């Protein structure tokens, strides 16, 4: 559905996006993670035909973004939620959506149906005749999402959909995106929110001008380190550490009597570790498996580029 090959954007001497290659399948939710200035918005703008590319190839649903005629076709099948909602404060919620519905060439009856459907779904149907200037930030964000969906697009580009929202509004927006996922919409999501990415996305790309890593959330987590076992002891002493050394295990000692040990095969090695510690006179309080988080993966890949 979205195919980018070596996509690059330069602003004079500055390279904002460097050789980005990615493929997003139909019905997939793809999350783009990266720090500020990583080129996420620039990449999204290139994919949604808002700005030109310096080099590379991009096809959206088979259409070429650099072709003017194709570009209009692409814009007809995509919906965009930009970072700034950009609604018309002096128009009502209904008129905002109606205006965009017309520009997206949505027939009148379909437009009316869609406006009612999305405003009801997002809980703002009762406020449809109120001017948007009187809306809260969360309501504006919901309305902007409805705007992106007004023409029932095949692909949705969402740039930081929950930024600056309170937790309740964030949850509403997240739940709504999950609803869209169920409807098999292809969603391209830029976010800083790792929890959101993990919860919503099928595939994640970590970007810092270049694409540093790509995969499912689980694949990214596992890509940074293997299995680790955490052993909490009453007290750690040299005898215990020597016993572990005899098992040829790599470990680190934390300052609150915890050992974090690298294990290749937890089911086989964990009993051996516990046995060695007990024989060395240690009192094991608990043993648990440590899993890397998406945050660990994100920080590792981003720091690699700094």
């Amino acid at each position, binding site marked *: 559905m979205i195919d980018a090959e070596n996509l690059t954007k330069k*602003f004079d001497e500055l390279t904002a996006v460097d050789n980005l290659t990615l493929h997003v399948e139909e019905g997939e939710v793809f999350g783009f993670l990266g720090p500020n200035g990583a080129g996420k918005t620039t990449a999204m*703008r290139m994919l*949604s*035909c*808002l*700005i*030109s590319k310096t080099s590379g190839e991009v096809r959206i649903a088979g259409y070429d973004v650099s072709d003017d005629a194709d570009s*209009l*076709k692409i*814009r*007809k099948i*995509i919906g*965009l939620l*930009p970072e*700034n*909602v*950009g*609604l*018309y*404060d*002096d*128009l009502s919620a209904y*008129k905002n959506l109606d*205006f*965009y519905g*017309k*520009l*997206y*060439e949505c027939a009148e009856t379909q437009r009316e149906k869609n406006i009612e459907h999305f405003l009801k779904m997002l809980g703002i149907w009762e406020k449809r005749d109120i*001017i948007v200037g009187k809306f809260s930030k969360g309501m504006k964000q919901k309305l*902007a999402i409805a*705007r*992106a969906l007004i023409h029932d697009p095949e692909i949705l580009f969402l740039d930081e959909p929950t930024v600056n929202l309170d937790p309740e509004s964030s949850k509403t927006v997240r739940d709504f995106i999950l609803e869209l996922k169920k409807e098999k919409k292809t969603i391209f999501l830029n976010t800083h929110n790792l929890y959101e990415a993990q919860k919503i996305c099928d595939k994640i790309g970590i970007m810092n001008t270049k694409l540093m890593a790509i995969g499912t959330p689980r694949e990214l987590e596992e890509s940074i380190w293997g299995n680790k076992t955490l052993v909490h002891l009453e007290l750690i002493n040299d005898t215990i550490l020597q016993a572990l050394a005899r098992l040829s295990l790599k470990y680190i000692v934390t300052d609150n009597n915890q050992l974090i040990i690298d294990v290749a095969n937890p089911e086989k090695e964990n009993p051996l570790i516990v046995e060695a510690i007990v024989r060395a006179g240690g009192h094991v309080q608990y043993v648990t498996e440590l899993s890397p988080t998406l945050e660990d993966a994100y920080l590792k890949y981003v720091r690699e580029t700094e």
Partner: protein
Amino acid sequence: MRFWKSWVIATKDFSIFRNKKGIIYSIVILPLLLSIGLPLLISAEGLGKGGIPIAALPNLLNAFSFFFVILAASLTTVIASYSLVGEKIEKSIEPLLATPTTDEEILLGKSFAAFLPPIATIYFCLVIFMILIDKLTYNTLGYFYFPNWNLLIILLLVAPLSSILTVELGIILSSRVNDVRTAQQLGQLVIIPFFALYILGEIGFIPLNIHNLLIISAVLLVIDTILFFISTLTFRREEILIKWK
């Protein structure tokens, strides 16, 4: 070019203007005051003996008509500033550019929005002006002074061309300024040459007769054409998103 798309954009702007009382007042009050005030001034002075000499009347009325050209340029600035800088302030330009609408269709829609309300107001007020002047001068002149070719050229050429000039300037200015007031203040500079023409017409240095009005129209047409090309170069989606600060 799909004109209906431009019209959708223009009608959206008209809806916004309707909710902004300040815009309505600023484009209606001054032309209305002039269309009533100028005839009242003539009425107060009187015509003929002790008043305005009959021979000077055509020149005076032609110069008064030219006031509406100044207004056309000035009022368009007010609207053009809201239409384009407003879009920039509300950051609504990005979702607008994301729709399947071409840059030219958006630019034309914005131009309609900035051009039509002031021109409609000017036309309406000019009709009031003509009726009042004819009513005042008919008995003295023995004929209806308006409508005449002078006014028709003003109505159909000079005023629209001066308004279009302001629209084009508004587009170019919008790429450089960030608030409506600055855009309006800078845009108002456009009335200086028109005001100079009015003064020169009033003192008889460049009489605002048919011949001179046609020359002014031709000059405006050339300037409008040049500014049109500059404004279309300015109004490109990439320029707007990246360079319009």
